[in-house]
């Protein structure tokens, strides 16, 4: 009787898994297709007009054939525009994935790298790298990672009361860490040379124009590996959304999952902040959109958020680099401009 019952339960669970898998594959395939289309099509847009057909041909040949583009046009496409779009994708994907997994782990829909002070932790790390190890390009992502990890742990420890981390405590802890680190940033920028302050302020707002050739492959691989790693923990995160005690009773290694999420998400935030500064709202708006349209199963919402985040930042950055061309805006201003009203709308609708 019990065997038959558990057997039936297994069958149902397996069938549900299969449905989830199909849903995941279909929605992610659609988003991935949209992402590739966006990368290709938005590569045709920029402050310098390029011949569309020749550019498309060159892009589809993956840069092996110039297709009649002049050397300058070819360089604009492959040395400037495409790397920047790919970095935008890496940054957007990283931030949205980090946001989605923080939200699941901390059972808080407002958990977001920017709002929890984690981006600011990475920013302080990057600032330390700039001030003390300016010449070394690798010091930036490493210290940004360290900074975001420290900020994450600080927020988590501050939020944990006797009754566990309640959503309210978590947001309060995030506000405290954010404002504290902001004042550290303000203090250090005040001590900096006037000439460095302006570029630094822009960078703090989130800016993709300084795409570093060395950091691009790093940011892209961290985004992909991080998203895969967190998606593989999505099942545990689903159970964790029931509460840590319940998840533990259902066989989730709560401590290990927590460490994995903190470390991987810090890596994701650290690499994107080191590459582009603090681009806000991505980790908040995109996972919300993903959950609203595809349901709250993390096995779907985490990879969907990753692809959606990439799409979101690519579009925002296209606006940033074209709307007042040949002048530019920092992408963070655009994501906030789109993100804040969108978020209010989502809150009202939910």
């Amino acid at each position: 009787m019990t065997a038959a019952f558990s057997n039936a339960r297994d069958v149902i669970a397996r069938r549900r898994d299969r449905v989830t898998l199909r849903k995941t594959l279909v929605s992610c395939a659609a988003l991935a297709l949209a992402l590739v289309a966006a990368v290709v099509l938005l590569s045709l847009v920029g402050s310098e007009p390029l011949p569309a057909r020749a550019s498309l041909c060159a892009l589809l040949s993956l840069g092996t054939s110039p297709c009649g583009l002049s050397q300058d046009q070819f360089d604009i496409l492959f040395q400037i525009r495409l790397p920047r779009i790919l970095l935008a994708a890496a940054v957007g994907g990283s931030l949205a994935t980090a946001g989605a997994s923080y939200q699941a782990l901390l059972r808080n829909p407002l958990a977001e790298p920017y709002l929890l002070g984690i981006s600011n932790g990475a920013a302080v790390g990057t600032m330390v790298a700039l001030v003390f190890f300016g010449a070394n390009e690798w010091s930036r992502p490493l210290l940004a990672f360290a900074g975001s990890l420290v900020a994450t742990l600080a927020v988590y420890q501050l939020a944990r009361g006797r009754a566990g981390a309640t959503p309210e405590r978590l947001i309060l802890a995030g506000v405290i860490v954010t404002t504290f680190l902001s004042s550290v940033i303000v203090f250090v920028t005040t001590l900096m040379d006037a000439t460095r302050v302006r570029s630094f302020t822009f960078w703090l707002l989130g800016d993709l124009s300084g795409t570093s050739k060395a950091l691009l492959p790093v940011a892209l691989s961290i985004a992909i590996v991080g998203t895969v790693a967190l998606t593989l923990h999505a099942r545990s995160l689903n159970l964790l959304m029931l509460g840590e005690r319940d998840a533990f009773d259902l066989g989730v290694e709560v401590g290990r999952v927590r460490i994995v999420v903190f470390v991987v998400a810090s890596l994701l935030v650290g690499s994107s902040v080191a590459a582009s500064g603090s681009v806000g709202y991505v980790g908040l708006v995109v996972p919300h959109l993903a959950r609203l349209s595809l349901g709250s199963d993390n096995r779907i919402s985490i990879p969907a958020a990753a692809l959606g985040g990439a799409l979101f930042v690519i579009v925002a950055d296209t606006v940033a680099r074209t709307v007042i061309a040949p002048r530019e805006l920092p992408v963070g201003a655009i994501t906030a401009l789109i993100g804040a009203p969108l978020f209010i709308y989502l809150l009202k609708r939910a």
Partner: protein
Amino acid sequence: MEVGGTFLFLLPSKTKSISALFLICLVFVCACNPGKPAGQNTATREITDDAGRRVSLPARVDRVIALAPNLTEIVFAVGAGDRLVGNTTYCDYPPEAKAITKVGDSLQPSLERIIALRPQVVLISTASQLEVFTRQLQDQNIAAFVTDPHDVEGVFRSIEQIGEMLGQTEQATLLVKKLRERVTAVEQAVQHTQPVRVFYQVSNKPLYTTGRDAFATDLMRRAGGTSVTADVPGAWPMYSNESALASRPEAIILPTGGSMGAENSTVADALRTSPAVRNGRVYKINDDYLARPGPRVVDGLEAMARALHPEAFKQ
């Protein structure tokens, strides 16, 4: 203070500490308000500044504060350095300027210290101009004079106005005459040359350049060049990397080596393939000459012209 001490002794402890605070405040207020207003302006003349404001000035100005390095340089150049009672941490030229009381930097000057120095006029460059700040100065009966030159002639006008304000009209006129002669000499030297297409890189990451309203754009024109970004709106716009690449400049100017130190000494990636880099025509010019609209812009102009047209200066 002694009366205060006795008075305090008679009060319960909590009230005592509050009263002590009050007394301390009172002492400070007294110290800051020496009976008369901070400035002693008996307005006798008016000058229109670059913000289009009519500024009332006393007949003789003995105490002046400069809130930008170019303004400090102008005050010294017209021979009124001894009347400069305050300047900013950026003000490092001439060397005597370093010894003058600092009121903060151009962006965040300390209003308290400015008022305490009892200036009659505060010279402001638009970079540091704050509306509220200016109003607070006026409330203290301190004149705020704004300069905002967009070209070499504007710099000369600033020199003449500040000279006139400080009663150094003759010296200022003479200075401007000499500077103008040097400018004319440069212009004559490059007169028959082909203008060189220049990209002026203000900073590398993010990429900033000079736009329509920057006086550096005027410098490039006079030095026998033409800025490839001369039509971009604004003075110091953040600029698209791809547009920089597409502009194919024949020469690149990097303002660096002065206050910038080693900052901005490398060309942006997008400009690596430009004719300027391929032909080795990247010129580093002291940013203090180029970024400060003061008397030394003419040094900057000469350095620029020599870089762009070495053939015109061979003798």
